[in-house]
Protein backbone atom coordinates (compact mmCIF):
# COMPACT_ATOMS: atom_id res chain seq x y z
CA UNK A 1 0.00 0.00 0.00
CA UNK A 2 0.99 3.62 -0.33
CA UNK A 3 0.05 6.78 1.52
CA UNK A 4 -0.03 10.29 0.12
CA UNK A 5 2.98 12.54 0.80
CA UNK A 6 2.66 14.07 4.26
CA UNK A 7 0.28 11.23 5.15
CA UNK A 8 -2.89 13.34 5.39
CA UNK A 9 -5.67 11.76 7.48
CA UNK A 10 -8.85 12.82 9.22
CA UNK A 11 -8.31 14.07 12.75
CA UNK A 12 -11.74 12.93 13.92
CA UNK A 13 -13.46 9.57 14.03
CA UNK A 14 -16.91 10.56 12.83
CA UNK A 15 -17.07 11.74 9.25
CA UNK A 16 -20.08 13.13 7.44
CA UNK A 17 -20.89 12.41 3.81
CA UNK A 18 -23.43 13.82 1.41
CA UNK A 19 -24.46 12.76 -2.07
CA UNK A 20 -25.07 16.09 -3.74
CA UNK A 21 -25.57 15.04 -7.38
CA UNK A 22 -26.93 11.72 -8.62
CA UNK A 23 -26.53 9.93 -11.95
CA UNK A 24 -29.37 9.19 -14.36
CA UNK A 25 -27.93 5.73 -14.99
CA UNK A 26 -28.93 4.35 -11.57
CA UNK A 27 -31.82 4.66 -9.16
CA UNK A 28 -31.01 7.09 -6.35
CA UNK A 29 -31.74 4.40 -3.75
CA UNK A 30 -29.16 2.11 -5.39
CA UNK A 31 -26.58 4.90 -5.36
CA UNK A 32 -27.29 5.47 -1.66
CA UNK A 33 -26.86 1.76 -0.97
CA UNK A 34 -23.62 1.41 -2.97
CA UNK A 35 -22.10 4.43 -1.22
CA UNK A 36 -23.14 3.23 2.23
CA UNK A 37 -21.70 -0.25 1.61
CA UNK A 38 -18.48 1.18 0.19
CA UNK A 39 -17.91 3.38 3.24
CA UNK A 40 -18.78 0.51 5.54
CA UNK A 41 -16.10 -1.62 3.88
CA UNK A 42 -13.54 0.78 5.35
CA UNK A 43 -15.43 1.41 8.57
CA UNK A 44 -15.27 -2.29 9.40
CA UNK A 45 -11.47 -2.14 9.53
CA UNK A 46 -10.82 1.10 11.38
CA UNK A 47 -12.50 3.15 14.15
CA UNK A 48 -14.28 5.50 11.75
CA UNK A 49 -18.02 6.13 11.65
CA UNK A 50 -19.79 7.62 8.66
CA UNK A 51 -22.88 9.74 9.08
CA UNK A 52 -25.00 10.74 6.12
CA UNK A 53 -26.25 14.32 5.83
CA UNK A 54 -28.59 15.67 3.19
CA UNK A 55 -27.76 19.36 3.30
CA UNK A 56 -24.82 21.66 3.88
CA UNK A 57 -21.14 20.86 3.60
CA UNK A 58 -20.06 17.35 4.54
CA UNK A 59 -16.50 16.06 5.01
CA UNK A 60 -16.94 13.80 2.00
CA UNK A 61 -19.02 15.46 -0.71
CA UNK A 62 -20.04 12.92 -3.35
CA UNK A 63 -21.26 13.82 -6.82
CA UNK A 64 -21.56 12.61 -10.39
CA UNK A 65 -19.94 15.12 -12.71
CA UNK A 66 -19.45 15.57 -16.46
CA UNK A 67 -16.36 16.77 -18.30
CA UNK A 68 -14.79 19.88 -16.82
CA UNK A 69 -16.42 20.31 -13.44
CA UNK A 70 -14.29 22.97 -11.81
CA UNK A 71 -11.60 21.08 -9.91
CA UNK A 72 -8.86 21.07 -12.61
CA UNK A 73 -9.34 17.35 -13.20
CA UNK A 74 -11.89 17.13 -16.05
CA UNK A 75 -13.51 13.81 -16.88
CA UNK A 76 -12.94 12.28 -20.29
CA UNK A 77 -16.24 10.71 -21.32
CA UNK A 78 -16.97 6.98 -21.41
CA UNK A 79 -14.25 4.61 -20.10
CA UNK A 80 -10.76 6.00 -19.42
CA UNK A 81 -11.04 7.79 -16.09
CA UNK A 82 -14.01 6.59 -14.05
CA UNK A 83 -13.78 8.69 -10.91
CA UNK A 84 -11.40 10.53 -8.61
CA UNK A 85 -11.21 11.63 -4.99
CA UNK A 86 -9.19 14.06 -2.93
CA UNK A 87 -7.07 13.18 0.08
CA UNK A 88 -8.32 14.21 3.57
CA UNK A 89 -8.38 17.93 4.23
CA UNK A 90 -10.48 21.06 4.26
CA UNK A 91 -12.49 22.23 1.24
CA UNK A 92 -12.13 19.75 -1.61
CA UNK A 93 -10.39 17.31 0.74
CA UNK A 94 -12.24 14.00 0.86
CA UNK A 95 -14.56 14.96 -1.99
CA UNK A 96 -15.33 12.17 -4.41
CA UNK A 97 -16.46 12.61 -8.01
CA UNK A 98 -17.76 9.99 -10.44
CA UNK A 99 -17.78 10.46 -14.20
CA UNK A 100 -21.40 10.86 -15.21
CA UNK A 101 -20.56 9.67 -18.73
CA UNK A 102 -20.03 6.12 -17.49
CA UNK A 103 -22.77 3.54 -17.29
CA UNK A 104 -23.03 2.93 -13.55
CA UNK A 105 -24.63 -0.19 -12.17
CA UNK A 106 -25.13 -2.27 -9.05
CA UNK A 107 -24.21 -5.37 -11.04
CA UNK A 108 -21.83 -6.15 -13.89
CA UNK A 109 -23.55 -4.53 -16.87
CA UNK A 110 -21.46 -1.37 -16.74
CA UNK A 111 -19.12 -0.10 -14.05
CA UNK A 112 -20.06 -1.34 -10.63
CA UNK A 113 -20.57 1.70 -8.42
CA UNK A 114 -19.73 -0.11 -5.18
CA UNK A 115 -16.38 -1.21 -6.63
CA UNK A 116 -15.38 2.26 -7.78
CA UNK A 117 -16.79 4.04 -4.71
CA UNK A 118 -14.94 1.75 -2.31
CA UNK A 119 -11.69 2.48 -4.15
CA UNK A 120 -12.29 6.23 -4.19
CA UNK A 121 -13.17 6.35 -0.51
CA UNK A 122 -9.77 4.80 0.13
CA UNK A 123 -8.29 7.99 -1.35
CA UNK A 124 -10.75 10.15 0.60
CA UNK A 125 -9.46 8.49 3.79
CA UNK A 126 -5.78 8.91 2.88
CA UNK A 127 -4.63 5.94 0.81
CA UNK A 128 -2.78 6.43 -2.49
CA UNK A 129 -2.61 3.76 -5.20
CA UNK A 130 -1.21 0.40 -4.28
CA UNK A 131 1.11 -1.64 -6.49
CA UNK A 132 -0.48 -4.86 -5.21
CA UNK A 133 -2.77 -6.18 -7.99
CA UNK A 134 -5.03 -7.83 -5.41
CA UNK A 135 -5.59 -4.57 -3.53
CA UNK A 136 -8.74 -2.50 -3.80
CA UNK A 137 -6.43 0.51 -4.14
CA UNK A 138 -4.84 -0.83 -7.35
CA UNK A 139 -5.48 1.90 -9.96
CA UNK A 140 -7.35 -0.09 -12.62
CA UNK A 141 -10.95 -1.25 -12.48
CA UNK A 142 -11.67 -4.79 -11.33
CA UNK A 143 -15.21 -5.75 -10.39
CA UNK A 144 -15.76 -6.52 -6.70
CA UNK A 145 -18.91 -8.27 -5.60
CA UNK A 146 -20.59 -5.88 -3.13
CA UNK A 147 -22.25 -8.48 -0.94
CA UNK A 148 -19.90 -10.26 1.43
CA UNK A 149 -17.02 -8.02 0.37
CA UNK A 150 -13.99 -7.92 2.68
CA UNK A 151 -11.13 -5.47 2.28
CA UNK A 152 -8.04 -7.18 0.88
CA UNK A 153 -5.11 -7.49 3.32
CA UNK A 154 -3.03 -4.80 1.67
CA UNK A 155 -5.82 -2.25 2.09
CA UNK A 156 -6.44 -3.25 5.71
CA UNK A 157 -2.74 -2.74 6.46
CA UNK A 158 -2.80 0.64 4.74
CA UNK A 159 -5.89 2.04 6.40
CA UNK A 160 -4.88 0.71 9.82
CA UNK A 161 -1.49 2.37 9.44
CA UNK A 162 -3.41 5.65 9.41
CA UNK A 163 -6.25 5.06 11.86
CA UNK A 164 -5.39 1.94 13.83
CA UNK A 165 -7.56 -1.16 14.02
CA UNK A 166 -11.24 -1.12 14.94
CA UNK A 167 -11.71 -2.50 18.44
CA UNK A 168 -14.23 -5.30 18.43
Amino acid at each position, binding site marked *: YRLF*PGEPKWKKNTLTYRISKYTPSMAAADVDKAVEMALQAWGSAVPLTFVRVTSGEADIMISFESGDHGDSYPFDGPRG*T*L*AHAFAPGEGLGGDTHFDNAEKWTMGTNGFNLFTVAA*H*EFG*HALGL*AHSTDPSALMY*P*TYKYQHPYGFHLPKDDVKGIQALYGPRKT
Partner: protein
Amino acid sequence: APSPPAATPRTSRNNYHLAQAYLDKYYTRKGGHQLGEMAARGASSLVKKIKELQAFFGLRVTGKLDRSTMDVIKRPRCGVPDVAN
Protein backbone atom coordinates in the same frame (compact mmCIF):
# COMPACT_ATOMS: atom_id res chain seq x y z
CA ALA B 1 10.18 -12.47 -43.85
CA PRO B 2 6.55 -11.33 -43.75
CA SER B 3 6.08 -7.60 -44.04
CA PRO B 4 4.41 -5.81 -41.12
CA PRO B 5 0.68 -5.17 -41.47
CA ALA B 6 -0.18 -1.94 -43.28
CA ALA B 7 -1.87 -0.54 -40.19
CA THR B 8 1.26 -0.67 -38.03
CA PRO B 9 2.52 2.91 -38.44
CA ARG B 10 -0.86 4.43 -37.68
CA THR B 11 -1.37 2.05 -34.75
CA SER B 12 1.96 2.89 -33.23
CA ARG B 13 1.33 6.62 -33.71
CA ASN B 14 -2.04 6.24 -31.99
CA ASN B 15 -0.42 4.27 -29.19
CA TYR B 16 2.22 6.94 -28.78
CA HIS B 17 -0.39 9.71 -28.42
CA LEU B 18 -2.51 7.60 -26.11
CA ALA B 19 0.51 6.78 -23.95
CA GLN B 20 1.71 10.37 -23.85
CA ALA B 21 -1.68 11.61 -22.65
CA TYR B 22 -1.85 8.79 -20.07
CA LEU B 23 1.63 9.44 -18.72
CA ASP B 24 1.06 13.20 -18.56
CA LYS B 25 -2.06 12.54 -16.54
CA TYR B 26 -0.92 9.84 -14.15
CA TYR B 27 2.88 10.00 -14.10
CA THR B 28 3.70 13.70 -13.92
CA ARG B 29 4.77 15.23 -10.64
CA LYS B 30 3.30 18.70 -10.28
CA GLY B 31 5.47 21.49 -8.92
CA GLY B 32 8.27 21.28 -11.49
CA HIS B 33 10.79 18.72 -12.65
CA GLN B 34 14.03 17.97 -10.89
CA LEU B 35 17.11 19.69 -12.28
CA GLY B 36 18.48 16.53 -13.85
CA GLU B 37 15.19 15.93 -15.54
CA MET B 38 15.07 19.43 -17.03
CA ALA B 39 17.90 18.53 -19.39
CA ALA B 40 16.38 15.24 -20.35
CA ARG B 41 12.97 16.33 -21.59
CA GLY B 42 11.20 14.91 -24.63
CA ALA B 43 11.74 11.34 -25.64
CA SER B 44 13.95 10.32 -22.74
CA SER B 45 11.45 11.79 -20.29
CA LEU B 46 8.74 9.73 -21.94
CA VAL B 47 10.88 6.59 -21.68
CA LYS B 48 11.48 7.34 -18.02
CA LYS B 49 7.75 7.63 -17.39
CA ILE B 50 7.04 4.43 -19.34
CA LYS B 51 9.58 2.66 -17.12
CA GLU B 52 7.94 4.12 -14.04
CA LEU B 53 4.54 2.86 -15.21
CA GLN B 54 5.94 -0.57 -16.01
CA ALA B 55 7.56 -0.80 -12.57
CA PHE B 56 4.35 0.31 -10.86
CA PHE B 57 2.26 -2.32 -12.62
CA GLY B 58 4.84 -5.07 -12.22
CA LEU B 59 5.56 -5.33 -15.95
CA ARG B 60 8.92 -6.00 -17.57
CA VAL B 61 10.70 -2.64 -17.47
CA THR B 62 11.72 -1.94 -21.06
CA GLY B 63 10.83 1.71 -21.56
CA LYS B 64 8.97 0.62 -24.69
CA LEU B 65 5.27 0.72 -25.51
CA ASP B 66 4.95 -3.02 -25.79
CA ARG B 67 1.65 -4.88 -25.82
CA SER B 68 1.42 -5.45 -22.05
CA THR B 69 2.09 -1.76 -21.40
CA MET B 70 -0.57 -0.69 -23.90
CA ASP B 71 -3.00 -3.16 -22.31
CA VAL B 72 -2.57 -1.36 -18.99
CA ILE B 73 -2.91 2.06 -20.61
CA LYS B 74 -6.21 1.07 -22.23
CA ARG B 75 -7.80 -0.20 -19.00
CA PRO B 76 -10.50 1.90 -17.31
CA ARG B 77 -9.10 3.33 -14.10
CA CYS B 78 -9.15 5.83 -11.26
CA GLY B 79 -8.22 9.42 -12.12
CA VAL B 80 -5.84 9.88 -9.19
CA PRO B 81 -2.20 9.89 -10.40
CA ASP B 82 0.00 6.91 -9.55
CA VAL B 83 2.96 9.09 -8.67
CA ALA B 84 2.68 11.38 -5.71
CA ASN B 85 1.81 15.02 -6.19
